[in-house]
């Protein structure tokens, strides 16, 4: 069930009606049933159900065994086994072909007779998300930060809660326990704010992201015909596409969950206004960064074991983060680039910057920081979007040609281009306002006729200018592939 489909909206409205009419004690059961229906509508492949069940049962059994055994050593062993099984399942389903083809390539170089034929596996939607959520839960139980959930149905709900199932955000059990299993009173503000946020997500995804996708796809899929400024435009278009796509998806997810009274953690905080790469990563896919910090960076020692070890740890989490995003080596390079950026930033901030004496509050300096961070991000995203490392390298090399041929020929009509520019401008203005104010709160204080006019206009903008329906394929979010 695509989050941008009218089926999803209808499903949500029907659920809300039942959710608030039925006795409140049943709310978590209704959420569980809704999550199962959501999965059933999303796939009919039986193997997907088996994979989901395996992840749920393994994490449930592991966490409860950890709670059951007394010694710390036993807890550690069970935790390690459970996490290993979950990671192996993820590797087996998602990375088996990457490992196979890479091994075959290496074997070929070493003149060893080993061939690999890609295995056809149906990868469950959102496997990277629910697996990490389940792993985080098992580790939290192992660390005795939280008691294991005895009720398997409640556990299933935690792992497979439908709004976050396919694209996150990464939730942690201690917080979700307080959201999912308690009763929620009907609160009109939650409902209206939730739907308003969903609308904003639809706007980002259907009006902006899908138009940017046309530009990015045209340039990246025909990169040999483009060079110079076109490659830069392609990289910027893709960065903005990815941002509006993923943050739009999060708006829909968080908005949908909000209508049910369940608050999910924020995943974006206007990251494109970041003034450094580490800041960018604190504001982009926030819950993934938090997950890696909590369950990988800190266990590796974080920044407490000296500079070199800190740099190595930073590289490790960005490399893992890179490969988490996709089954190609391009993602690893993207992760490595971000790791290098972070290390350099740390070196500059710790070693060089203190020795330089200039006004860091200067507006031009801040502007420069934002632009340079954005440029570095766009540069790294060339690897993220390219099909192969060689494609990315060739594209980067061709930037230097200063060729202006094919400028403006990006597969978008004039009117679509105008709509895109106006929409990006609107998004930019709203993002600036959002830095200091809550836009929905601001609107809610306006007179009713103005509020109605604003929301109806936004709906009509999405309905008329959105890329959806026959002739468009706007149903899948980029991050659902990860």
């Amino acid at each position, binding site marked *: 069930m695509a989050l941008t*489909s*009218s*089926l999803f909206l*209808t499903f949500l409205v029907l659920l809300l009606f039942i959710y608030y009419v039925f006795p409140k004690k049943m709310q978590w059961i209704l959420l569980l049933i809704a999550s199962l229906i959501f999965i059933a509508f999303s796939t009919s492949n039986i193997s997907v159900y088996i994979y989901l069940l395996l992840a749920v049962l393994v994490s449930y059994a592991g966490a409860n065994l950890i709670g059951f055994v007394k010694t710390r050593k036993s807890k550690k062993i069970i935790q390690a086994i459970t996490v290993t099984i979950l990671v192996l399942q993820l590797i087996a389903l998602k990375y088996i072909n990457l490992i196979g083809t890479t091994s075959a390539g290496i074997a070929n170089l070493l003149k060893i007779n080993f061939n690999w034929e890609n295995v056809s596996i149906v990868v469950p939607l959102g496997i990277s998300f629910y697996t990490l959520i389940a792993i985080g839960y098992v580790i939290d139980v192992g660390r005795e930060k939280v008691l294991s959930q005895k009720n398997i149905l409640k556990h299933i709900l935690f792992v497979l809660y439908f709004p976050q199932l396919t694209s996150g955000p990464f939730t942690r059990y201690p917080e979700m326990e307080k959201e999912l299993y308690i009763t929620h009173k009907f609160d*009109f503000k939650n409902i209206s704010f939730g739907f308003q946020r969903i609308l904003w997500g639809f706007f980002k995804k259907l009006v902006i992201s899908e138009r940017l996708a046309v530009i990015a796809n045209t340039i990246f899929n025909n990169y040999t015909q483009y060079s110079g400024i076109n490659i830069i435009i392609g990289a910027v278009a893709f960065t903005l596409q990815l941002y509006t796509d993923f943050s739009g998806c999060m708006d829909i997810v968080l908005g949908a969950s909000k209508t049910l009274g369940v608050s999910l953690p924020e995943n974006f905080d206007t990251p494109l206004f970041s003034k450094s790469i580490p800041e960018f990563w604190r504001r982009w896919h926030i819950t993934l960064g938090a997950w890696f910090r909590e369950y990988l960076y800190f266990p590796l020692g974080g920044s407490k074991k000296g500079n070199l070890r800190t740099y190595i740890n930073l590289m490790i989490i960005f490399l893992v983060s890179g490969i988490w995003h996709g089954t190609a080596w391009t993602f690893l390079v993207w992760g490595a680039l971000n790791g290098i950026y972070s290390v350099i930033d740390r070196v500059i901030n710790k070693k060089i910057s203190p020795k330089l004496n200039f006004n860091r509050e200067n507006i031009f300096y801040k502007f420069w920081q934002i632009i340079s961070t954005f440029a570095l991000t766009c540069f790294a995203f060339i690897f993220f979007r390219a099909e192969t490392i060689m494609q990315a390298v060739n594209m980067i090399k061709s930037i230097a040609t200063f060729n202006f041929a094919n400028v403006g020929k990006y597969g978008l*009509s004039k*009117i679509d281009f105008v709509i895109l520019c106006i929409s990006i401008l609107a998004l930019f203005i709203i993002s600036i306002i959002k830095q200091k104010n809550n836009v929905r709160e601001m609107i809610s204080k306006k007179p*009713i006729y103005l509020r*109605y006019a604003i*929301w*109806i206009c936004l*709906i*009509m903008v999405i*309905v*008329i*200018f*959105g890329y959806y*329906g*026959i*002739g*468009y394929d706007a149903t899948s979010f980029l991050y659902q592939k990860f």
Partner: protein
Amino acid sequence: MKKLKILLGVIIFFVILVVVMLKLGDFLVPKWNDEWLNTSTVKNFYNLEKNSLDVLAVGSSHVIKGFSSLELYKNYGISAYGLGTEQQSPYNSLAFIKESLKTQKEKVVLLEMHMFFEETPEPQNRKGFDNMKLSFNKIEAAYKDSVQRNSFENFASLIFPILRYHSRFSEVLSNKEEPLGPPNYRGYSLSSEVCGNLDYVTLDESIKEEKPFIADYEEYLEKIINYCKKKNIGLILYKNPDMDWDMQRYNAVKRVADKFNVPYIDFNLEKISKEIDFLYAADCELLNHTNIYGAEKITNYLGKYIKENYEIEDKRGNEKYSYLEKQLEEYNDAVQNGKIVNMFDVAQYVEAIKKENYSVVYVKNQFVNTNNENYNKIINGLGLTLQKVEKPNYYAIFENGVLKEEEGSDEVLDVKTVIDVNRPVQINTQSGSIVFEGEERSCFHPGIEILVYNNKTNQLLECSFINLDNGAIVMGR
């Protein structure tokens, strides 16, 4: 009180939203004004005078091209309307019948059976349906269609067409004029094309097998029958002549018709086909639909059947229905135009183009053998002066049956003139050229070239020629 206020606010918000969505949808829905008349047929239907219908025909393109409401009025005084839309599914047929009863009290419904064995593609399904007003009938039909297609998006966009046509905004904003399309004669699209196809055969009545109905269409047929019975409407199932129809389908429909004691008239049966003197090659157009000749035969048979079996008051001469007389006049003109372009009987043709409302240009472009008695008769019949025609260069212009210009000369004639007050015509007798409104129309065939224009309907009908061929008079186009 606070909850009530919230509820009221939500209701008002959604009412405004729905109205805006529907109104903008109307703006963006394409106007299907091609020969299938989907848009105008449904829109005109809603504009019919209240309680003015005796007979309603529903179904697919076979209704659009085969059921001529004004033919029924002309010969039987019946007020009818053909609510046929392209590949209309049975779901939509029932919805249209139900919709009609909101404003009409028709006594008879004619249901064309073609689409009970065919699936309707999504684009075709919408063409007429998008113009149906939002109602429970529309929602029910949209729901049934969407279940069949297993698409919730389809349901949403059938109710709110803006969801389907939203991307047309740039097209609409660019102010491209929608083509007017051919005239709509109460749901009838007149076609004068003749296919000449001799492959058609009537049904093989020795076959006893049945072809199953598509999806739940049998159940829906029963639903339509029961609904009409409940509303005391005489339902007649019928099937237009159709190359794709077969005895298996006939048997399936016949079984249901017999079960509910409903009349079923199948024009593909040999007996009926002979009775109406149906000839597929002459009575059908290329795309397996009846043309003006076929539609006349089908409609008159149905009219006779209705008149004999149902009590329907003759509306001819009734002041309340005087608008039908005006529509009939236009229809008759169009039929006459359509028939002229298909005439090959020279004598009949000569009589037809001499009538009022026609401007006719004659140009002689080669030597015409006037020694032939029959040919001379035709020239006289046309009202042309034989002595002038005998000259090497000749032209004449008739307006409303009256000779306006005529000249025969030994010299080449190069004439610029007008017909129908201000329509420019340029004639050259050396080549036999007739340029009408800047476009060459001549067949450049030996003999007399004839350009026929209808002043009343403002239509250039054709350019034909009459010539002698081995002593025989031939005409061509």
